[in-house]
């Protein structure tokens, strides 16, 4: 009782949640910039969203490397002799780096205004961008023993979260364009709705899962984590902004701004609580 106290740490602490958040937004912003080659209403976002995406990509990359205990060995991930294709992280590393390279090329084409190559790179880049939330989702999904994480929903949820958070950031970058604003409003509504729906099914499968899932549900819905997950993530960060955006106020600048801020807070809260939620219980085992 007063002896044998051995405790375990969580593998992935909060730095990872910030990374997920940042990289998700980066990827969505690139996607919006890329869409501008195909849809006029996204045009005002092309440069702004790209720059923001690129800065966030750099920040995310640094966060990821900085969180390694051996940041100097980051390049090992590119060493073909070491590469393990069974690991989502290996795919993720490749994805991240190729996305970075494509983004640089895209930047030059964008500056040159090269329609043809710009479009090509927009498509390639978008696919790679889409890969980022998908791989981060997979990063969690593959851990078969972790409640909450181990669901096929996870990559989709991360794509949804990426889009809704990205749209929230993008809504500040529209330079006041009506069309872009309303595109972002729609984007927030649809992806926010999708996220909401996925969260509800996630809660369901967790609450009625096995003993591990059930206990994880208890952790996720009570105490501080409950406040973060349910309070900030689901209510303040998902439900309230959707209601707000549907309400007349949501069509006005203030309303949208408020909703965007709430969505961002919620997006961070959800990533944090999902990351933690999947790990808490096992530290007791």
């Amino acid at each position, binding site marked *: *009782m007063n002896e*044998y106290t051995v405790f375990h740490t969580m*593998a992935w602490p909060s730095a990872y949640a910030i990374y997920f958040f940042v990289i998700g937004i980066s990827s969505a912003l690139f996607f919006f910039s890329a869409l501008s080659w195909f849809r006029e209403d996204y045009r005002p976002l092309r440069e702004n969203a790209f720059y923001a995406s690129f800065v966030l990509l750099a920040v995310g990359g640094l966060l990821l490397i900085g969180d390694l205990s*051996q940041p100097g060995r980051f390049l090992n991930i590119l060493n073909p002799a*070491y*590469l*393990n294709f069974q690991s989502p992280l290996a795919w993720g590393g490749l994805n991240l780096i190729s996305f970075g390279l494509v983004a640089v090329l895209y930047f030059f084409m964008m500056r040159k205004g090269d329609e043809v190559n710009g479009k090509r790179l927009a498509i390639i880049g978008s696919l790679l961008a889409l890969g980022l939330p998908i791989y981060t989702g997979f990063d969690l999904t593959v851990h*078969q*023993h972790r409640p909450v994480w181990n669901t096929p929903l996870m990559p989709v949820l991360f794509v949804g979260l990426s889009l809704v958070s990205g749209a929230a950031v993008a809504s500040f970058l529209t330079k006041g364009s009506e069309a872009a604003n309303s595109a972002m409003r729609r984007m927030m509504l649809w992806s926010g709705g999708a996220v909401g729906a996925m969260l509800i099914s996630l809660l369901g499968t967790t609450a009625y899962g096995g003993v591990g899932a059930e206990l994880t549900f208890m952790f996720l819905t009570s105490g501080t984590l409950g406040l973060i997950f349910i309070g900030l993530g689901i209510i303040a960060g998902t439900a309230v902004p959707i209601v707000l955006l549907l309400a007349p106020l949501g069509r006005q600048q203030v309303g949208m701004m408020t909703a965007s801020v709430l969505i961002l807070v919620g997006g961070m809260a959800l990533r944090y609580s999902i990351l933690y939620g999947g790990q808490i219980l096992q530290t007791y085992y």
Partner: protein
Amino acid sequence: MTQELLMSSTETRGRPGVRRYAMVIDVRRCIGCMACQVACKAEYDVPLGVFRTWVPYRVTGKYPTVKKQFLPRLCNHCDDPPCVRACPVEATYKLEDGGFVLQHYDRCIGCKACMASCPYNARFMLPEHRTYTDITKVVDKCTFCYHRVIQGLVPACVQTCVGRSRIFGDINDPNSEVSQLVARHATQVLRPEQGTKPHVFYIGADRSLTDYGRAVYHKDEQADIERAAFNRNKHI
């Protein structure tokens, strides 16, 4: 186990021509003396705050009918180890002959994907400070005392086990003590539903000891006070 039950190419149990080491822990014989835990610390200069093996306990029953039982824990050297799958750089790998799951310390980037993927908390990050070993800030875990076993010695924790609760050997050899124990006794493994095929087999471990999550139902508040200190003060 026979060949038909092999499910992935990584599995070596029952594969002819290779050794497959395993540990049997007879919980009926474990007295919770912690000798194994400390011997392992010494063998590897394991720093404070992390453990390659540890011996948690449960107190069950109501006064005056109360029991205290221990469950020695360590890496299961899974036959289908998720940690190996998770590692992006193959810094953690499984040795075909012997079935040891090991680390290349100089390759590990410290992403902790393997820690996240191990269902047993068997892995940990080595802190920056150690007494005399300069392998730091990479992930580590029990090696099944690879360096001893290949030189004909049992693991350090087995060597010192006061209750002779830990038995080690080649489960592919039908005459080994581990094979015979597994054949003759009902054995348990931890979290079998995870498909990891653990190679640490328990004898006499009932579900009050092995169940995942049960400890949280019976939360020991004292441990929680300590856990808070651990989370507050650890430098890992």
